[in-house]
């Protein structure tokens, strides 16, 4: 197994994690027009919740779900009690999310300390699986599988259910959706909590690979930002494609141009911005 195969597998895995992170980010931006700068914090908070739950002796998957739920609750509270007060003042919302992200980061540092915490791979993911003659770490396969399953579930939710229809209606035209009797503000809370929960869940399942450390939020937020600008906001397909593009760019960039990994990452985003400002699959213009 050569270097490039390993890189490609890592890229797909990172892409899967990024999809979990950015699907919520993209929906929140598409629906509420908030570039939610706490999204990286949600990822980190979820990871830390997971660490605590694992420390209490929880099963890995239960810890992941529990952390996801906890972060979803946290997100719902933020939406309901802070962002709700600022409806329509988009800029104020950005600044509040920025302030909150600093508070969350510092609170995590206070609570869990500054040392990186490594998380053991759950027993089911230990070892390698042979796939088409290539040995692939099983845990990475599981992450990819989870990302695919969640992508399908989200697509079903958005495309096939009444709730999804309401969300799509509110993304396209919030005022008209309101007139039709859709409680758009309830959708805001639901979508914000859903996005936060997905990010928190991703934080836990990503922990065995990325480990958990202060600054994880600042590492993940720009990636989510690039995914959404690249793929277009409010579009699941955009997040999916964007996530894998970013996953590949990040991993290959780090090996080929170690000093310029960040530039390699942001360059395609800038090109897309200049050529097609709404992103590859965007429903909403920035």
């Amino acid at each position: 197994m050569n270097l490039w195969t390993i890189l490609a597998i890592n890229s797909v895995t990172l892409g899967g994690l990024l999809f979990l992170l950015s699907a919520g980010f993209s929906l929140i931006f598409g629906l509420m027009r908030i570039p939610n700068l706490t999204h990286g914090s949600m990822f980190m908070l979820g990871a830390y919740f997971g660490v605590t739950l694992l420390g209490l002796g929880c099963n890995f998957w239960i810890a992941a779900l529990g952390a996801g739920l906890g972060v979803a609750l946290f997100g719902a509270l933020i939406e309901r009690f802070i962002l709700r007060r600022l409806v329509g003042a988009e800029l104020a919302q950005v600044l509040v999310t920025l302030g909150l992200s600093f508070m969350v980061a510092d609170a995590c540092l206070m609570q869990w300390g500054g040392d990186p915490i490594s998380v053991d791979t759950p027993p089911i993911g230990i070892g390698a699986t042979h796939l088409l003659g290539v040995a692939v770490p099983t845990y990475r396969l599981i992450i990819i599988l989870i990302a695919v399953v969640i992508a399908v579930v989200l697509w079903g939710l958005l495309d096939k259910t009444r709730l999804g229809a309401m969300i799509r209606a509110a993304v396209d035209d919030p005022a008209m959706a309101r007139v039709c009797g859709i409680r758009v503000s309830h959708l805001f809370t639901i979508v914000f909590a859903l996005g936060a929960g997905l990010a928190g869940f991703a934080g836990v399942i990503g922990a065995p690979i990325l480990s958990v450390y202060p600054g994880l939020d600042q590492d993940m937020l720009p990636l989510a930002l690039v995914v959404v600008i690249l793929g277009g906001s409010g579009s699941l397909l955009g997040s999916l494609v964007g996530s894998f593009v970013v996953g590949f760019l990040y991993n290959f960039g780090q090996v080929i141009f170690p000093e310029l990994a960040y530039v390699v990452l942001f360059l395609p985003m800038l090109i897309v911005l200049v050529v097609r400002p709404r992103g590859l699959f965007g429903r909403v213009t920035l």
Partner: protein
Amino acid sequence: VKRVALLIGLVALATVPFWVGNSYYINISSQILIYAILALGLNVLVGYAGLVTLGHAGLFGVACYAAATLINAGHNSIIVAIGAVAATLAVTAMFAVLALRATGLGFVMITVALGQIVWGIAYRWISLTNGDNGVSINVRPHPFGLALDSAPAFYWATLVVFLLTLGCMVIFVASPFGAAVRGTRDQPRRMTALGYNVWLTRFLAFLFSGFWSAIAGLLYLYYNQFVSPQTVALSASAEALLMVIAGGTATLFGPIAGAALVVIMKDVASAYIERWNFVLGAIFVLIVVFMPEGLAPGSVRLWRFVMARRQRRLPASVLTRERQS
């Protein structure tokens, strides 16, 4: 009365080293002035042009890194100053071309991304920026033969630059260009109809803002004799933005008050608690939620609200304007 007040203020500022005494506090005063220059420059963009940027620390940092590199290469202070400003203006122009593809939220997101690129370069491009260790210069340079080694001397030099900045801002606000910039903020469509080139006006405002960030960056490097990726981090951009917003956007003295507030708070807070970032975040949230128009007008409004128990119409600011529309 206004002139007398100005004169008293000037005298007070000029004599700070005499009545403050301790060189530690003189240095704090220098820091306040440096950040006030940065905040005044940022205010052109955030306050007058209505373009909120979260990548400004990147511009500030480019000036720091450019100056440090030039100084270490052994150039004299004129070349250092010109080089740092030119490098910053070049980067500012790139920022502006890319970020001005969008306004409002898109603009914010693009500036965040651009600021992170600068951070990534500062952190990763080790052969150029020495990575996390940062770049230090050995001695505080003597620009134009002035010895700036003592705290009061540096303070006075900074004060001169600061007053120059303030003077330029007064001229800018009163000038037709200043009016045009405010016009593109309030009524871009009408400005287009009147024959103004909105994009170009914003672009020039961006450059103007970048120029003062470069000056502040240069002073910061002379003051600290060290620059590291921390200087260009997102939290540094947020701090600068907090200065502008806390003091009151689109006012001349708001950013100065904001800079003083943030620097003093940071100094005081870090003496008692370790959690400056938490405090910064909390202040951010509180100000935005309760005093969106800035501390000075905000406290006046809250006071009147308490007195009269009647909600008054809020003065226009970046935040309230959006809420009203």
